[in-house]
């Protein structure tokens, strides 16, 4: 009996010890990452003091050039785009920024249909957001609160340090070693869409996820509560969509008295040479969009 008790105690001690060691090692590497998505996320959650912060999915990373905006407005600008993310992620980042008492002059939230509609794959849903935010669980009370609100079991799961870095090793190594040469979160794409490309029709097929609508409203409420100007923007796409989700966000913004800019409806973006693919602008397109954004912000700023 005594031997069994010793073995059980030994197991528990080794488990806790190894888990803590793994946690320490991964936490060190994760927070040391200088490039790519991890660096952008850490910057926003932990230290950003920028005047303009743009958040959203991969469109943010490709479509907005902070240099253009900064040079023109004389305000610092940072973009945090994270692939396959939706409003849950944007809300968590915005909350983390605001709750550490940094109130940017403008918070820009890039949205798409996926910010309202249900996801039919592993992206653009709450699980994707939680998975991306878990390494920062203990960095920010806001992140912790968002994760726990959406999934109560995370309180227990996050007792393990190893769990928080689940499946992150390749990304951590990449963000440590591979210099993406981004500028304030902007990773330009130099590809060009085939000039002969026609705008295809991509219809939305999924239903509305009401939790996402609540999240949009919470985001607006949070910004209003702290006197931060929040602007919802819809990036240009090179396809025709019924914009079921985007129209709903437009309606919410109208109801709440929040600014909504639909750049997708601008004629200048009917040009395929400005796109890297159907969803993202290339470097030239990003310059055009950033100038358009700067123009509108400078009007607001006056």
């Amino acid at each position, binding site marked *: 009996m005594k031997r069994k008790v010793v073995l059980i105690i030994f197991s528990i001690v080794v488990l806790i010890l190894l888990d803590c060691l793994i946690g320490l090692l991964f936490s060190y590497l994760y927070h040391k990452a200088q490039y790519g998505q991890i660096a952008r996320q850490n910057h926003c959650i932990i230290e950003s003091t920028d005047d303009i912060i743009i958040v959203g999915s991969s469109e943010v990373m490709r479509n907005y050039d902070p240099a253009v905006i900064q040079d023109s407005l004389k305000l610092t600008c940072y973009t945090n785009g994270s692939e396959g993310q939706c409003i849950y992620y944007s809300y968590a980042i915005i909350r983390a920024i605001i709750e550490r008492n940094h109130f940017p002059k403008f918070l820009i939230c890039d949205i798409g249909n996926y910010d309202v509609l249900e996801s039919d794959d592993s992206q653009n849903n709450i699980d994707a957001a939680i998975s991306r935010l878990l390494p920062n669980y203990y960095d920010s009370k806001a992140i912790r609160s968002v994760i726990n609100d959406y999934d109560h079991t995370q309180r227990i799961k996050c007792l393990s340090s190893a769990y928080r870095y*689940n*499946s992150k*090793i390749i990304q951590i190594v990449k963000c440590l070693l591979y210099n993406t040469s981004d500028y304030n979160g902007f990773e330009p794409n130099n590809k060009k869409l085939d000039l002969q490309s026609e705008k295809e029709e991509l219809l939305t097929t999924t239903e509305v996820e009401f939790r996402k609508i609540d999240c949009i409203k919470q985001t607006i409420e949070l910004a209003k509560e702290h006197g931060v100007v929040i602007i919802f923007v819809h990036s240009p796409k090179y396809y025709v969509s019924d914009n079921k989700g985007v129209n709903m966000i437009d309606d919410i913004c109208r109801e709440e008295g929040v600014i909504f800019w639909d750049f997708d409806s601008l004629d200048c973006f009917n040009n395929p040479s400005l796109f890297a693919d159907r969803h993202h602008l290339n470097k030239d397109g990003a310059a055009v969009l950033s100038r358009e954004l700067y123009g509108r912000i400078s009007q607001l700023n006056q």
Partner: protein
Amino acid sequence: MTFTSFKFLIFFPLIVLFFNLVPKKYRLYYLLAASYTIYGLLQPAYLLLLIASSIITYSFGVWIDKTEDDEKKHKIMIGGILLILLPLFMFKYYNFINESIISLLGYIGISVSLPAIRWLLPLGISYYTFMSIGYLVDLYNEEVEVEKNPCSVALFLSFFPIVFSGPIERAGHMFPQISRMDRSKPSDLVAGAKMMLWGYFMKLCVADRLSLYVNAVYSNVEINNGSSLGLAALLFPIQEYGDLAGYSLIAIGAARCLGFHIIPNFRRPFFAKSISSFWRRWHMSLIQWLTDYIYTPMAYALRSKKSWGVVGALMVTFLVSGIWHGATMTCVVWGLMQGVLLSIESLTLNKRTAFETKYSLEKKWWYNLICIVCVYLIFAFSEIYGMSSSFQNSNAIVNKILFDHGPLFLHPTSLILGFFATSILFFKDIREEYFPKAFSNTNNYVKITLYICLFLYILLFGVLDGGQFIYLQF
């Protein structure tokens, strides 16, 4: 509440704890209640179907036992089997047969429309139906005693570790354990926990990790080239092995924690040197069931046809296996493909053996390696048809693999972590297959540390928000 859900991990230790606290005479009812609760949480409506199947199985069992006349007994058994098969037919095969009849009639210019059923497939129906049939046939053959307690029959068919995904247990093996049901021994708890841990590794670190690549490629056949499709086709058998063997191992381990010894389902299938050997190692409980209840009686009935009788029995057996796997024409073809391969092996067995003996090939490592690789490649090829939704899709994949090569689609996280986990899996399998005595450290502290490392590996590299279990669809 699947085995990989967080809820299961929380509730399972409590189920085991209360199982050991409940007095012996109530353990049967406790486990039955736990099994029905877990099934009911997933598919409440179909719990009634499971209960109905149990009542039919029990009633026909008692009826067969009470009947003296052999001919009448046979008729009762057939009646019972047909009744048990009815829900499986309605839920799984009705639409398939409907559509096949409509297309056949369409070929000869007759247009008919038959109503389709759009119901969800009850979980585990293929498993508990086969277990019920096995029980009635064994009773008829007087290989098992009739079970007088209806709750024992109900638990046999609904026992939560195995009801969703097998292994397909036998009455003769389960009823003595159900009637015994002692407290779990510490050795059973440890053995069960070890099996579950390894099962989780196979499922979450191997199968679900590789599935991220395989699904990404297979679900976009039109935009992927032959090189990527070829890699996906090669990885799919490993994914399937991790998925089914892993899940079976979790089931066997969970049952072991409750003191039940469940039959094994896999025995290192990728070291088989022939297709027949492969099928003695892959999904063993299903193949053993098919062998006992379809192949052996058929081969016996066709014994006058000699080797062609064996071929006939093999073809029918694997046709049933194909249909069991799915109600699609691709599954039928997959089953027939296995039947043809096994028939060729059976017909050429004597010549092959003579050839191998003449050149002492069986002792040569390179010959064994070639055989192992060939069996793997043949199985991987057949799976392109087995798991595909249509012939068009399968043919497109094969066509691209043969003629359309290009740069590989790379998904570093799934490929690197998948490769690493597969290496660990194969290292263990190689050790057990060829060097069973190697690395067998008896020091408990070393063993515990290794199991803790495995647990942390799963936490760090497993796909924890992962997909469904492939075999739940059966």
